[in-house]
């Protein structure tokens, strides 16, 4: 007599479904693999023709000229310049907002402001680019003090950087605020009980305690800025220019990729492969930064939760 404890049928349906679902999850791994392959293969081809040192350390980036030059330093510096001005704007503002929301604001204010910030963070980057070109640049040009030299050109690093800064403020504010909220109240209360002022508690107790989360927010914001295309494409310029002067125009890595990939470059040529080489560099930079940021977030979560 068959046991009542055995399954009445082989339950193939269950197995099929669990297999199908696993497939969906594996797809995510497949995507990463696809990204790496799609970047890797032309990049390898590229480095058959161009040496790595020329690429990474050369200061002349004219891949479409004749003769071409593939030194990537100008566009990397261009990206990092814009990122620098962006962080310079966003860190004080974002951190200030975060400290206010975490330590000073009433619950009602927090409940309204935090989601608002996050919704505003969804503004498309093409709007930021437009804002930088159409509004920030003219304002900068108008108020530029004479003693600093020539004012900003039509395309310039500073306007793009400022717009970038506004864009990444919500990232810094939100994640820093999360990190500060995770600090247990006991730590604050102990300091208050000793007579510390709110400012001291915020700066000497809460911020150090949440430091790994705060730094994670900076790293994440920087990574976002580095990978951002439309703002730099619209407002920072499209000609490689190795300079630290924020009033000049530059070309960022992402802008280079965007312009060249939509232009008339024959596939398979070394000029075409430059797109993938620069793309690989971009991918690696942001990947490293993201992994650092994930580690830091995990660290503060572990300590406090």
């Amino acid at each position: 007599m068959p046991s009542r404890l055995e399954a009445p049928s082989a339950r193939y349906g269950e197995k099929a479904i669990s297999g199908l679902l696993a497939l969906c999850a594996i797809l995510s791994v497949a995507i990463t693999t696809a990204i790496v392959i799609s970047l890797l293969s032309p990049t390898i081809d590229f480095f058959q023709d161009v040496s790595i040192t020329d690429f990474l350390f050369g200061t002349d980036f004219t891949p479409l000229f004749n003769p071409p030059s593939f030194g990537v330093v100008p566009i990397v510096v261009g990206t990092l310049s814009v990122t620098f001005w962006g962080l310079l704007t966003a860190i004080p503002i974002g951190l200030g907002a975060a400290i206010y929301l975490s330590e000073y604001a009433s619950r009602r204010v927090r409940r309204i402001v935090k989601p608002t910030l996050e919704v505003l963070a969804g503004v498309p980057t093409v709007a930021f680019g437009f804002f930088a070109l159409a509004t920030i640049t003219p304002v900068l040009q108008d108020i530029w003090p004479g003693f600093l030299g020539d004012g900003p050109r039509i395309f310039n690093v500073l306007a793009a950087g400022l717009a970038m800064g506004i864009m990444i403020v919500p990232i810094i504010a939100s994640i820093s605020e999360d990190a500060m909220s995770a600090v247990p109240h006991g730590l604050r209360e102990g300091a208050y009980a000793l007579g510390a002022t709110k400012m001291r508690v915020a700066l000497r107790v809460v911020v150090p305690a949440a430091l790994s989360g705060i730094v994670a927010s900076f790293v994440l914001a920087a990574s976002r800025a580095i990978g951002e295309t439309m703002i730099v494409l619209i407002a920072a310029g499209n000609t490689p220019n190795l300079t630290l002067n924020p009033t000049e125009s530059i070309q960022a890595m992402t802008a280079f990729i965007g312009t060249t990939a939509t232009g008339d470059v024959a596939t398979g040529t070394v000029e075409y492969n430059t797109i993938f080489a620069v793309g690989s560099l971009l991918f690696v930079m942001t990947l490293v930064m993201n992994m650092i940021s994930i580690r830091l977030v995990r660290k503060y979560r572990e300590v406090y939760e």
Partner: protein
Amino acid sequence: MSPSRPPRSFTAQRTEIAASGAAAATAATLEQRPGADVLKGRAFKAALLLGLALALGGLVWLIVDALIEGGGRLSLGLIFDEGSANPEKAGLWSALLGSIYLIVGVIALVVPLGVGAAIYLEEYANKERWWNRLIELNIQNLAGVPSIVYGILGLAFIVRGPLDLGFILFAGSMTLALLVLPTVIIAAREAIRAVPSSIREGSLALGATRWQTVRRQILPASIPGIVTGVILAVSRAIGETAPLLLVGATVFVTFEPSFFDDKGYTALPVQIFQWVQRPQDEFRVLAAAGIIVLLGLLLAMNSFAIWLRNRYEQRW
């Protein structure tokens, strides 16, 4: 630093932070100058408020600026006219349709794949196994990859390369779907995780199989959260420009799009981008108006998502 010491425990770290805070507070109390302290405190608070104001203000300025520039150009004509080289007659119709078609494609791809992956990771996978943790880490990393890299992926894999679909609208959908898939997976996982395990246990204890439990208990309870996550992911996809530029969204299209034709297609942000690049003032106004339309669309979608979540959220 001696290498033989064990790593600091978390309690030790917290104690250290608390101790340094207490030390700072004590030192401050001892050197207290009440008047100066109050002033410093007020100045500090003012600085923080300024930060908050600037954070919100910068974004508000952007929106207001777009409204001022482009508000006058808003009209039904703007929505329903086709693109044109003449700024007086140009409209958003092809771009809007293109965006809508793109989004339909994105949803069709991202919902089954994203929710399926989330169900697998939450309900079926053994979380201790290394390959499952690899998948999780992978998804977190994918969420941070720059959008233009997804464009490169689309160009190399979908438009050309193995899939070789050409510059068709569906390739754009696929590229955008890959871009937002990690977000959908993460949001769906949160929604599924929010269902308490007591429900799962109750269902399994009655003799339901795992899939029956997922289909009849977990999914119905987590659908509001999943739908909210999908809408938010989709609203991000609508605003993306860079990947579309790489996979064939051309900038001058005057006809209605279709999924698989390679006559070309465009999308709302791409159209705005094209207008931004023109130097003439009329195009600048058009660009601003287009931005208003795009922001309005996004606001509507986000509000809908929030309303949905508030209306159907299950409080456990």
